[in-house]
Every structure is written in structure tokens, then in C-alpha cells.
């Protein structure tokens, strides 16, 4: 296990910057998720950490050792790829033992380490099979097995669950988290799925356009996003945002709807008002809206209502008897209101 330090790291393809002065400190044994939309640079950063991409500037340290110019095999890392990248002509056992064979370990030692990893991942009965004889989930476990037999200092995961169906993704998510809790190996995990990031990580790094937008624990990001991008990227359904300005102690949206402010808020620069769907409730008195769409999911009901011209989402935990077209009143939880500046930065 080892800490990982990424300091002022940059990456350029010609004149095009793809990673700009990114700095992240990852503690020994920590599970950190890099999350962001496609093209934000998260996979590039992971590949730079692995040594598969050169870095244009800055410094990467693994366990205190600068690894900028060190080959991937000497970084003591293991990586799980989105496509699994299993060697198609090798059996599961050969795939898992290949790195150890290259290190010159004897057959008995390789067998022991492969068996140990196979026991952890319940791969014992599959050791003699070829990758093409395995299901998606089994292949994913073999890819993880190949990583853990090496006892690396750092695990790197590059969107490892993207090729699995929704149900299997949930199962594998739990397996990876369980594996991390057992092995306590420092892990950097790339995903574009914010649910994966929220459920698995000790800390999340939200990226956009090659820049880190926010680093923090999942609930900190959820409760106190530093800007409107993080506010809408983290959380599903996304936070409702309304543009407008503060007039006479209330936030008035661009189409004239008045929204209450948090108690004691005195700043006047707010230009965007944010409220998460579960922090809006149907009330006897409040902001009048018209129900547009009703989506019962079983555990909760999602309502899309029209607040002026804007679609606004509510998540109601209890069963609710409303129909499309019905007029209702909604009220925000005043303690959970987010206010942002014209540039999108958090104000409260």
C-alpha cells in the first residue's frame, strides 16, 4: 500500500491542454473516485498514473517515489481495464499468474498466489477456463484477480463496470467495495457514473475540461457542491437550478416566480437558486405549480412540475396521489437551499 500524490500535473496533445494543473493527494489505503463527463480527462489522468501516458508537466509520486519517468511495470501498480483486457489464449489461471511468471517466480509460488486470489474472488472452479467461456461478470472478476495476485501498492480501475448490465453492475460494485475493505489497498477508480462514485469512494474528485472542480467525501459533495456543475453532476435526479436575482429578501426567477431564501441570508449577489428534488415537498401553502409527469418507482415517486416555464423535479418518499395536470403547491426545505453567483460559485 502507498499514498499517491499528483502535483500540478499537466497533459497536452500538441497545443491542446487535456489536463491542467491537477493536484490530488490520495492517502494510503484510500478509495478515490475520479468522476466527470466524457472527455473531462479522468481516464487520461489514470493512464498517466499508470505510466501509459507521458505527462507534460508536474509530478506524480507513488509511495513518496517520483514515477514521472518510470515504466508501468516498475510502478508497482495494477490496472483493471474497461474491456478487461484478458489474454484470450490463456486460461484464467494463466491470465492471473502471467505477471508473476514474468517476475520469474517459481510455479508453486505462482499457484499459491493464484489460488489465494481465486479464493477471494470465488474463481476456483473457473481457473482452467478460457476468457471466452466466461460471462461478463466472471471476466470482470478475473481482471480483478489478475490485479490482486500481484499485491500491488495501488489499484487502478478504468470504468470497469461499464460493459456490464445494470443488475450485475450493482453486484460488482458491492464486490469491489468489499474487496477494498478487505485488502485496504490504495485505489483510484475512474467512472462517469456518479452513483458508482457516491457509493464506492472514500473521496470523490469531480473533473470537467481537464480541471478538478471539487474534491471531497461523497456526502460533502452532495450537501455542499462548490459550483453549479458539481451541484448538477452529483445526485440523481439532478439538483433543480433557477436563474434570477434577489429582490426584497426573496429570490425572484427570471420568469417572475418568487422563491424563499434561507433564514438569515443577507448576500445579494446570488444569481442561481438550487434545491435538490428531495428537498422540495408538496405543501398546503407554497409556490403554486402544475404537475407534468408522475413517475412512481415503488420506493419513491418522482414528480416533474412546471414552475413558471421551468421543469422542476421533486422526489417524494411517501406515496402521493397526484395526477398530471393537477395544480399543487410546493415548498423548499429552507435549510437545504443552495445559492450560486453569476459565475456559478457557491455563496452560502
Amino acid at each position, binding site marked *: 500500500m502507498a499514498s499517491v500524490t499528483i502535483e500540478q500535473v499537466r497533459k497536452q496533445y500538441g497545443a491542446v491542454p487535456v489536463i491542467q494543473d491537477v493536484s490530488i493527494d490520495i492517502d494510503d489505503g484510500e478509495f478515490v473516485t475520479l468522476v466527470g463527463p466524457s472527455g473531462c480527462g479522468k481516464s487520461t489522468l489514470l493512464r498517466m498514473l*499508470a505510466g*501509459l501516458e507521458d505527462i507534460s508537466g508536474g509530478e506524480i509520486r507513488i509511495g513518496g517515489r517520483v514515477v514521472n519517468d518510470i515504466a*508501468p*511495470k516498475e510502478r508497482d501498480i495494477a490496472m483493471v481495464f474497461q474491456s478487461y483486457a484478458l*489474454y484470450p489464449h490463456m486460461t484464467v489461471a494463466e491470465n492471473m499468474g*502471467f505477471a508473476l511468471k*514474468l517476475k520469474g517466480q517459481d510455479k508453486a509460488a505462482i499457484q499459491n498466489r493464484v489460488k489465494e486470489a481465486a479464493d477471494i474472488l470465488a474463481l476456483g472452479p473457473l481457473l482452467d477456463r478460457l476468457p471466452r467461456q466466461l460471462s461478463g461478470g466472471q471476466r470482470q472478476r478475473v481482471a480483478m484477480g*489478475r490485479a490482486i495476485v500481484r499485491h500491488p501498492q495501488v489499484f487502478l480501475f478504468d470504468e470497469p463496470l461499464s460493459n456490464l448490465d445494470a443488475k450485475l453492475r450493482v453486484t460488482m460494485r458491492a464486490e469491489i467495495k468489499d474487496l477494498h475493505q478487505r485488502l485496504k489497498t490504495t485505489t483510484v477508480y475512474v467512472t462517469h457514473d456518479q452513483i458508482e462514485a457516491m457509493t464506492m469512494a472514500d473521496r470523490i474528485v469531480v473533473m470537467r475540461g481537464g480541471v478538478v472542480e471539487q474534491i471531497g467525501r461523497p456526502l460533502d459533495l452532495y450537501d455542499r457542491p462548490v459550483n453549479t456543475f458539481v451541484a448538477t453532476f452529483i445526485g440523481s435526479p439532478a439538483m433543480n437550478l433557477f436563474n434570477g436575482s434577489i429582490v426584497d429578501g426573496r429570490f425572484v426567477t427570471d420568469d417572475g416566480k418568487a422563491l424563499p431564501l434561507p433564514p438569515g441570508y443577507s448576500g445579494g449577489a446570488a444569481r442561481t437558486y438550487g434545491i435538490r428534488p428531495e428537498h422540495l415537498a408538496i405543501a398546503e401553502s407554497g409556490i403554486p405549480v402544475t404537475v407534468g409527469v408522475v413517475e412512481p418507482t415503488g420506493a419513491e415517486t418522482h414528480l416533474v412540475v412546471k414552475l413558471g416555464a421551468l421543469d422542476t423535479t421533486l422526489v417524494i418518499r411517501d406515496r402521493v396521489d397526484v395526477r398530471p395536470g393537477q395544480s399543487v403547491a410546493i415548498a423548499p426545505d429552507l435549510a437545504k437551499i443552495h445559492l450560486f453567483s453569476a459565475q456559478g460559485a457557491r455563496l452560502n
Partner: protein
Amino acid sequence: MSDIAISTPQAQMTRTHSAVGSLRIVQTACILVIALVIVSPLFMLLIASLKDDRFQILADMGSFRAFWVSDPTFANFAEVGNFSGELAFGRYLLNSLIILALTVGSGLIVNSMAGFVLAWGSVRGRALILSLVIALYVIPQESIIMPLVIMVSRAGMTDTFAVQIVPWIASPLYIFLFYQFFAQLPKELVEAAQIDGASIFRIYRSIFLPLSLPALATVSILMGIESWNQYLWPILVTQTDYARPIAVAIATFFGQDSIYWDRAMAASVLMMLPILALYLAFQRWFVSSFVGSAVKG
């Protein structure tokens, strides 16, 4: 009464089925004709090799009798076996096999390595090298053959096995074929192997080479046929029969005064057998390679 014919979906479907059926019949007939054109000379060769009268063979050519033998005999094969040139016929066969095995064996290693490095190695000017490889491929072998003869003659290589092997090991066609095959394999395989600690040679040997059986089979067959059928080059670079291949030996049946059609036909059949065996051995991968390259575009 109305003249309008009502076309039901069932009637339309029946017409479609019958159109598809007619098309299939035409397609099958065309394939049969093409197959007949390709196979008939081989069949004629086999039939002629079983006739022991060389004048009869000549007389039968041009008629359907060329495809029929009423009194088959293996005497021609026995005569070829007792062939009394400078060397026994079997020795020419062995020469050809040695040349084929060493050319194909070395060719697979050299061309696949070059293709792999071009596909995955850190090569400066890769695009330029690839265009040079393709440019070399379009130059006909005959146009460089005389300078090549002078070169090998100056190097004192004439009348050896080496002179019939070394110049034909590296081939732009096979380098390009391997390059294309390796380039389509996923990049993650290389990266996973790099992280596992494999060197570039180890990635080639342990990961890419075992995955390239279809390409290896294709190149083996194409190189094998090319090497087996070499005629002009051995004639130019050998003065004695010591290292001469079977294709040159067969030419001795076509004498100045008379042509021994019966023995020439039997020898040709014998010459065909090893290359046919090579094809049959690698056919599965050979076909899958061609089909693979077709469907993957």
C-alpha cells in the same frame, strides 16, 4: 367486372420466395461453372498421370477423353521414382521441402516481428515506412531479379540452399499482412501486458504471436506456394543439381527431342501433394483469416 388484381401479402410473399429461389439456382449454376473451370485442369492432370502412353495423352487433349482413363496405371509414378537425372527425383523433392521449410519458418518470424513493431512499437516515421513497404510490394519481382542475381553472385552464394532462401524471407506483402492483423488487436492487451511487466519482445512472443494463428496460417500457405513454385530464380542461381528444387527437375522431362508427358504429369501430381497437404493442414485458420478480414472491414 373489375380487372383490378388484388395482391394479398401471402401472394407477394410467394412471389418473393420464388424470386429468391430462382436467384439461388442461377448463383449455384455460376459457382459450379467457375469450380469446373478451376478444377478441370487439375483433374485432367491427375487422369493423364494414370495413362502410360505419352502419345495417347497428347492425342486425348482437346477432347473429353482427356478426363477419362480406361486402363489406369501407376507406372508413370514408378518411372518418376526411378528418375535418373543427376540426382534421384526424391532428392529434388527433399531440396524443395528444405527450401520451403526454411523460407516459411524464417519468413514467419521476420515478417511477423516487422509487422508487430510497425503496429505497436514506438517507431518514428511509421507512416513513411508503411508507405515504403507498400511501394516495395507493387514492384514486380522480375524487375529486380537481375541486380539480385549479380548481388548473390558477388557474395559467392550461387548454387546453395541459402541463395534460394535468404532473398525471399522478408516480404513487404507479408509484413503488411501481419501489420494489419496486429494493428486490429485491442490496445488494452499491450497495455495490460506492459503493466504486467512484459517487454516488447515478450508481448510479441507470449501475447500477439499465439493470437495470430490465422495470419500465420495464411502467410505459411502463401509463402509455401510461392517458394514451392519458384522456377526462374533457381534456374538463375544454380549451376548444378545439388540444391535444385523439384520445379526445375520436372522441366527435364521436357527434352529437346521429345516430351515425356506421362512422367511430367505424374511428377506434377507428386509436386502438388506437399503443398496440398500444407493447405489442408492450415485450411481452417486460412479461411477464417480471409473471412475475418472481410467482415471486419
